[in-house]
């Protein structure tokens, strides 16, 4: 039997990590924090959570290289565009 989808224990730990990330995002939101640094932080949190979903839950960790590049690459590209847009809108 292949173990493509990992163990329940690992999935549970990762779930806790995801929830923690969400609470952190919420806390930043409720705090009303802003700025390029905060955007970078949110992007990193989102990227980490996304990587958990992509590599573990979607099991792309075991997929051919192309897929391990394309799907996480999508997320990096999207966050890069968001960051550029945010930066372009900063007062100067």
């Amino acid at each position, binding site marked *: 039997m292949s173990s493509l989808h990992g163990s329940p224990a690992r999935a549970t730990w990762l779930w806790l990590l995801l929830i923690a990330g969400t609470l952190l995002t919420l806390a930043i939101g409720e705090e009303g924090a802003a700025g390029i640094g905060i955007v970078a932080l949110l992007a990193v949190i989102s990227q980490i959570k996304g990587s958990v979903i992509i590599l573990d839950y*979607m099991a792309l960790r075991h997929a*051919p290289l192309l897929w391990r590049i394309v799907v996480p690459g999508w997320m990096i590209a999207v966050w890069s565009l968001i960051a550029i847009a945010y930066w372009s809108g900063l007062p100067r």
Partner: protein
Amino acid sequence: MLAADTPLPSLDTPPAGTPRLAGDLAIWIFILAELLAFGAFFAAYAFTRAHHIELFTHEQQALNRITGAINTMLLLTSSYFVVRAVQAAERSAPAPCARWLVAAIACGVGFIVIKLHEYSAAFERGVTLSSSPFHMFYLSLTFFHFMHVLLGLVILSALWLGARAGRYRPNDMNGLESGAAYWHMVDLVWLVLFPLVYVIH
């Protein structure tokens, strides 16, 4: 739907360590197309926001971040349950597989209920697709995603029927893995959408 025609028992279990894509190539191509559409919409939001910063910041304040975060957690939990369902099928346990799927569906329904609540509040404030650029994006992005949650729930329901019929086995996971991948995509997109639309200002 997805589970309706799983293929003949696929290739023999590949040797351990061989790279394998979990789910059908067809669903992955579809997922990529969906990701591109969402990605383009996200970028459009971000660049439009850069031209209307005060408007976006102001109107974003009216959104309820708490329910947004609860919805995030519902989707994450739902994804987790789907993973457990897949793991159950991977060790030939159809009954737990079906139960985990029910739990996942319940979370998805919770998301829908909260979202509808959020929409009705927004409509009361007079939010429409044409009331402002922010409202346009808020409604378009969340509604586009909302429709995906509904589609995902239809798929999960089909998987649940398949699981109850004992259709998914360690050497025949294609239908289940494909549906699961789609559901995770719906979750993944929300992980960008929530901070982008509800938090960043």
